[in-house]
């Protein structure tokens, strides 16, 4: 009962701390969201050797581009060290708009389901409801979490892709990386979509100028390697032995990805530093002010015989309780804010990721900083004589 009253006495302090911690956690959650996106991409590119047909599409897996014929895929599979080659097609869902921001890009991914996924880090994708694609599937789709949320799709829903109807048979878990905005279909369905989307490809096929069959229509391939082999060495071997392909070394692609996201990384550091400074200053200032406001109480308590140690212990216990409550309140406030923005303003994108490490870190940070500020303020107050403390507090 008395503890509750003590906290009520600190109501504005708790609110001040909650607002500071909410700012810290909200900014941190946005940083975590971007970190997860970059880490997810990095994990993906390090799990496979990405090969594209030589041509416009230099980055297999990110845009439609140069054709990777079936014969080339067979040649890749015969390179020593290679284990598993999965033909793929990646197409922008809407080719009429710029896709320079991959954070929001929606893609159609067609996969050859007769081959197990070679990516070592994504053997399977986590399905939240329904099922994943199977060999022989036709006109069915598995959609990413953000894609489903933005269109209100669930298992059994239908969606139109290039004027063809598809049934949604599965929705993925939210992964906070690229597949959240994917529509996954069988490679045959993706080939049909590619032809429908690309007038130049239709013209080439109709002219008979290139001897292409359906199985030649691939934008790239995901290539696996045998256990014990060095993926970069296998990639170099593919480069040497198979003409007409663009091969990305996993380590090089990872480096490229990281350098292309260096801006985001710098932004994250800036946001993090800002969050720490603003949130930390707000919290420390609020806590110290709360102690300074009680200067007269400290004077009275010392007059009654309290030693510096007794007062320090008392303030420490109170500040821990206050910062704990304020910190938890701030986390709740930030989560509510994040939920509201994600739900109503972010068009089904998840802008915040409240990771356990962020929440625990923010709470520990607020408690430690609050306690430090309270102890500092108490040390300043008890350095005064009791009479002076009473005079100043009057």
């Amino acid at each position, binding site marked *: 009962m008395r503890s509750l009253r*003590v906290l009520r006495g600190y109501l504005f302090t708790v609110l001040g701390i909650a607002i500071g911690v909410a700012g810290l956690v909200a900014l941190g959650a946005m940083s975590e969201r971007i970190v997860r996106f970059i880490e997810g991409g990095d994990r993906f590119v390090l799990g496979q050797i990405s090969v594209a047909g030589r041509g416009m599409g230099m980055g297999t897996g990110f845009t439609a581009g140069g054709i990777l014929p079936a014969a080339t895929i067979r040649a890749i599979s015969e390179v020593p060290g290679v284990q598993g080659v999965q033909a793929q097609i990646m197409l922008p869902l809407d080719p009429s708009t710029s896709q320079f921001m991959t954070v929001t890009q929606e893609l159609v991914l067609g996969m050859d389901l007769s081959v197990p996924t070679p990516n070592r880090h994504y053997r399977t994708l986590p399905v939240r409801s329904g099922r994943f694609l199977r060999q022989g599937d036709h006109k069915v789709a598995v959609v990413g979490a953000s894609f489903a949320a933005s269109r209100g799709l669930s298992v059994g829903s239908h969606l139109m892709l290039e004027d063809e109807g598809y049934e949604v048979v599965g929705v993925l878990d939210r992964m906070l990386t690229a597949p959240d905005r994917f529509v996954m279909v069988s490679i045959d369905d993706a080939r049909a979509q590619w032809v429908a989307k690309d007038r130049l490809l239709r013209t080439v096929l109709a002219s008979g100028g290139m001897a292409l069959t359906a199985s030649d229509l691939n934008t790239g391939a995901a290539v696996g390697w045998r256990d014990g082999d060095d993926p970069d060495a296998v990639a170099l071997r593919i480069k040497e032995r198979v003409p007409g392909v663009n091969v990305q070394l996993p380590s090089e692609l990872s480096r490229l990805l990281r350098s292309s996201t260096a801006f985001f990384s710098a932004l994250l550091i800036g946001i993090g530093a800002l969050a720490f400074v603003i949130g930390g200053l707000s919290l420390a200032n609020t806590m110290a002010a709360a102690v300074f406001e009680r200067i007269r109480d400290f004077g009275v308590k010392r007059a009654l015989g309290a030693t510096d140690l007794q007062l320090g212990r008392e303030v420490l216990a109170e500040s821990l309780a206050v910062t704990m409550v304020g910190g938890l309140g701030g986390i709740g406030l930030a989560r509510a804010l994040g939920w509201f923005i994600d739900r109503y303003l972010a068009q089904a994108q998840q802008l915040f990721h409240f990771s356990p490490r962020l929440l625990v870190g923010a709470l520990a940070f607020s408690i430690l900083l609050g306690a430090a500020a309270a102890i500092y303020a108490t040390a300043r107050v008890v350095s005064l004589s009791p009479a002076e403390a009473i005079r100043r507090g009057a």
Partner: protein
Amino acid sequence: MLRAAGLVKSYRAPAGTPIRVLAGVDLTVKGGEIAVVTGPSGSGKSTLLNVLGLLEDGDGGEIWFEDTRVSALGRAAKSRARGRYVGFLFQSFLLLPSLTALENVLLAARYVHRSGPATRRRAIGLMQEVGVADRMDHFPAQLSGGEQQRVAFCRAVLNDPPLLLADEPTGNLDDANGAVILDALRGRARAGVAVVVVSHRPEAAVGASALYRLRGGVLESP
């Protein structure tokens, strides 16, 4: 019980010049005695009481509580000495606003490690003696000035200190409430406690064992 010799205290004016408030105060108060110090406002009465009660350090002189030279003690030991030897009564009561009347009284026991059911019973008994037991769950803001000072009196005597220091204890009270507090102080003196009262009210001197006037930084007998 209380012996002070050669107490000196100066403050510095904003211009930097020292203002001597106590210029060699000698005072002895035995158990059962009431010493009343009068003097005009600004004469240094409160400063004298603060120095005697170890609420601030003097610039010179010595203070003894019983056989202990408390003026020579360190910070923590002075705090413990205040808790053990001294009960304070202030003009502005100085109750903690976040605590109930009973909790304010019990606060005195917290720092001398006397908290417990017996202390609580004693606190309630004291509040009954001065007529505020029915207000024990009220907060200071819900009490009149007279009630607040009676609660403050209970806090001052809870630990049975051998020395009571009262700084204008009736300054913010009407005559009736002032009389209650002064009677209570006299009662403590009769029980063997040494009491020092600083006041400019003449009725405070009634029943005093010794009456002093603080003038020019020294105590004079009128």
